[in-house]
């Protein structure tokens, strides 16, 4: 069963995130791919936080060869509308079927702060553009001989304020064709529940599948970094005190991730989780095993 079919069925969905390496070799991707055999979709980041890495489309192709189902992330930071359309046609020709449309982090956070930010489109317009390409037209109005058939996803940040703006943007993304929504990592369940409540009031969870982000962390430093340095992130003080007092922070991080997953599975309106084991890909099978998600339905 591929991701599209799983979305249409009632199954619980698990996606995960993988960062391509900062090298021209493909060995690392193949090695990392081995950790993700049990998930429904693997997000391949597109130069995350503005740091140059191997292209997401190339890495997705390698993942496809390894038998995974890749979800390419496409950001508007580096490419204008010509490059984005051409890349999307290329990716579709290589058999990639899922796409996550993002606006993209500003280049000043990355390793090339001098770079020219493009932002020709924003994520909502990108979603509309991919929808148009699925219908067989380019932005110029030219017809495509073979239309793309992407499953479109969008991102949501449940923690940034004002909440009205978040819901509004989510609504726009879904009305333009997003079929699944992946959120930022949840470290503050009360704030997340507040957001889910609003989403359910608007009935948006029935039009698109909500996949809540879960990030296993190794140390308390990662959490405080996230709280202080990553804009729009919220970390509950309990999480930090728990990690700070833990004897084995790695084990505590896994336990915390599993607990979050269990709480999220009980939340009505949540269709799945999106694991983000940043630089810690090997932990994915362990977390899935511990939260009884490893043996869901066989493909």
């Amino acid at each position, binding site marked *: 069963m591929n991701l599209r079919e799983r979305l249409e069925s009632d199954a619980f969905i698990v996606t995960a995130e993988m960062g391509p390496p900062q090298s021209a070799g493909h060995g690392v991707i193949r090695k990392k791919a081995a950790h993700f055999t049990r998930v429904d979709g693997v997000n391949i980041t597109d130069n995350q936080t503005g740091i140059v890495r191997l292209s997401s489309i190339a890495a997705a192709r390698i993942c496809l060869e390894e038998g995974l189902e890749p979800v390419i992330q496409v950001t508007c930071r580096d490419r204008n509308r010509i490059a984005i359309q051409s890349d999307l046609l290329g990716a579709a020709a290589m058999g990639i079927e899922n796409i996550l449309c993002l606006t993209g982090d500003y280049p000043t956070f990355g390793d090339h702060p001098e770079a020219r930010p493009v*932002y020709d489109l924003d994520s909502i317009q990108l979603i509309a553009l991919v929808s148009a390409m699925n219908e067989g037209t380019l932005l110029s109005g030219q017809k495509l001989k073979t239309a793309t058939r992407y499953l479109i996803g969008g991102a*949501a940040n449940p923690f940034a304020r*004002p909440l009205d703006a978040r819901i509004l943007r989510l609504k726009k993304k879904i009305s333009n064709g997003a079929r699944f929504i992946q959120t930022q990592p949840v470290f503050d369940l009360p704030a997340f529940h507040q957001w889910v409540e609003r989403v359910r009031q608007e009935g948006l969870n029935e039009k698109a599948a909500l996949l809540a982000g879960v990030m296993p962390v190794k140390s308390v430093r990662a959490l405080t970094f996230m709280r202080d340095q990553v804009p729009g992130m919220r970390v509950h003080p309990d999480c930090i005190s728990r990690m700070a007092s833990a004897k084995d922070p790695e084990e505590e991080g896994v336990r915390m991730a599993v607990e979050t997953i269990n709480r999220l599975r009980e939340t009505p309106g949540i269709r799945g989780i999106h694991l983000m084991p940043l630089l810690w890909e090997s932990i994915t099978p362990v977390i899935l095993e511990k939260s009884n998600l490893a043996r869901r339905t066989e493909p």
Partner: protein
Amino acid sequence: MNRNRLFTHDRGPRKFWERALSFVMLTGENCFKVPVFGCQRCGECLLSHTAFICCQRCPKRLRNGPCGGTRDNGHCEVFPERFCVWYRIHRRARFLGRNTLLNSTERIHNWKLEKTSAWLNVFTRRIPPPTLFVKRRRHES
């Protein structure tokens, strides 16, 4: 003129008289719109939809709402000392009762209209006219 849901297909003012008129009108607009609204002269004015704050002051030049990086205090992720433009827009839109105007998906910016007079573009029907009056609806929440 071919206009669709996503994008305006238009080459902008090209005839000599049109370019000259655009220049004169833009100079006039600049005197008012730049100091009052912080206009960035994109030529596809959204001011009436964005509660009269120019959304093009956003470092990412987003036209459809804030990115995911708005800080807890409502400041911008790129320039922490500044307020997020979209945070201010949403606050003022609620105050002015113009939040329904934020619901529409704005078209992709046409760079051929950059640095042209938005009012001239309205008169030549390149862009839709501004929505000046909104029926005030009682706030639900």
